[in-house]
């Protein structure tokens, strides 16, 4: 199928290359194993998720020899994410430094983290959502225009993967011609996706690029996120503080991998899930008010990310009575928690009509996903745009039926679709 440049590496190859290290094609359905292990020790398991499936852990390079735990129950996972002064993000800081840089939201702890977060949160607040929205809808229509007359395409690579990176790039002031390059760098910066040196090189290139954009926006502000961020400031007892250039770069390098992979994979999972359930899909065409519930239930039932990055135990502590020595790394297993039968009735059933209840899909505690509102907006808009323009959406009978796969990152193998 499509390759972004003659003889070069297409976007499908990039996606496969960066996700094969994290379990794509190796683990298709991790949930039965979670169900089996969850009842033991309150759902606190004494290994990493990768070890649980007999795989090497690409995220452990920076912390060789550290004792590992992973949570599988809702209660244990919520506990770890809430008690952020005991289970700190210092572990993530060391693990992600090469990819996110020295200053990152995910790699910092309160009170510094909170100050940083207040500087960037307005970029994801109500006012800014209008700005995000203004990039999303035209891009979705443009993509659909490109394939609507064909009657069939792989929506995963021609649609899902083509808009979150575009939206982020536009809000950050990246030129259209640089989009493919930008997406490639973002892919390499995802946690565990590439060897440290490769991730670092990608980050340095993005930083150089963004420094130029920031300098331009300082001279001539535009209606975009980067201009909004430059103006960002917080008031503290000793006066007002403007965001620093290092903080902007830190946010960009954190935002890119977080926003580029998760949203499109989640949309792909949603589409496969719906096409496997033609009756539900038919109902959705008729009643669009169900779209938000479908999006939320997909995030619970098969979210795009298995676990929040590991937390570092800053002291000897316990989770559900299990002793956790100081210096251990604990993975808060948000996906496993979202299938905990103590929290959700019939957790393995995809049911958008279940009672509304929060999930851990966007994490929990002080590091709750800062882009959650943008992700929801994008997922709803992308699903609605397809339903608006592609009637009778179904699996392409000429292509093999896709399956969901992956461990750290979850995704469909493809979304071969036909319509009309």
């Amino acid at each position, binding site marked *: 199928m499509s390759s972004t440049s003659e003889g070069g590496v297409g976007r499908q190859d990039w996606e496969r290359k960066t996700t094969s290290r994290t379990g794509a094609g190796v683990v298709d359905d991790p949930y039965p194993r979670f169900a089996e292990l969850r009842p033991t020790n309150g759902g606190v398991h004494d290994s990493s998720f990768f070890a649980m499936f007999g795989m090497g852990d690409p995220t452990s390079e920076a912390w060789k020899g550290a004792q590992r735990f992973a949570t599988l129950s809702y209660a244990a996972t919520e506990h770890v*994410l*809430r008690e952020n002064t005991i289970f700190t993000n210092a572990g993530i800081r060391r693990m992600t430094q090469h990819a996110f840089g020295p200053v990152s939201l995910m790699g910092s702890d309160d009170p510094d983290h*909170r100050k940083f*977060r207040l500087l960037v*949160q*307005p*970029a*994801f*607040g*109500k*006012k*800014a959502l209008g700005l995000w929205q203004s990039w999303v809808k035209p891009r979705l229509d443009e993509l659909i225009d490109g394939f609507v007359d064909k009657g069939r395409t792989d929506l995963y690579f021609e649609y899902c993967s083509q808009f979150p990176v575009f939206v982020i790039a536009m809000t950050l002031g990246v030129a259209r011609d640089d989009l493919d390059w930008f997406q490639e760098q973002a892919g390499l910066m995802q946690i565990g996706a590439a060897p440290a040196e490769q991730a670092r090189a990608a980050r340095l290139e993005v930083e150089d690029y963004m420094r130029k954009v920031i300098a331009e926006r300082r001279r001539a502000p535009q209606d975009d996120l980067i201009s909004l961020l430059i103006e960002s400031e917080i008031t503290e007892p000793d006066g007002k503080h403007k965001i620093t250039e290092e903080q902007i770069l830190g946010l960009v390098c954190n935002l890119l991998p977080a926003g580029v992979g998760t949203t499109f994979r989640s949309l792909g999972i949603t589409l496969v899930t719906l096409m496997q359930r033609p009756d539900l899909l038919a109902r959705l065409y008729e009643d669009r008010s169900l779209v938000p519930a479908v999006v939320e239930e997909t995030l619970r039932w098969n979210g795009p990310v298995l676990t929040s990055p590991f937390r570092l135990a800053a002291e000897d502590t316990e989770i559900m009575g299990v002793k956790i020595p100081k210096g251990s790394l604990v993975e808060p297993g948000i996906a496993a928690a979202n299938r905990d039968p103590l929290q959700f009735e019939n957790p393995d059933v995809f049911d958008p009509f279940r009672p*509304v*209840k*929060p999930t851990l899909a*966007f*994490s*929990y*505690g*002080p*590091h*709750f996903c*800062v882009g*959650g*509102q943008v992700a*929801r907006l994008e997922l709803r808009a992308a699903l609605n745009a397809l339903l608006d323009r592609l009637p009778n959406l179904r699996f392409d009978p000429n292509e093999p039926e896709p399956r969901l796969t992956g461990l750290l990152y979850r995704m469909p193998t493809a979304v071969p679709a036909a319509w009309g």
Partner: protein
Amino acid sequence: MDTLVHPSGVRITIDRGRCVCSETCTSMAPQTFETDDEGLVRLLDGGSDPEAAVRNAAACCPVQAIRVETPGAP
């Protein structure tokens, strides 16, 4: 406004200093909570959400930024 007395008599207090804009409260009790331009929670003055919905929103807040108190309770 960081405090509101709900029609049922309970007092709702929010801590914007903790809010992470998860939209949990705004989806569970949309008449009582909203998020503003800053991406932080704000109380709406009306509030026809049932008391149970407000209590539920407080219980589910990922950063415990909402307190619901019954007047006269210790």
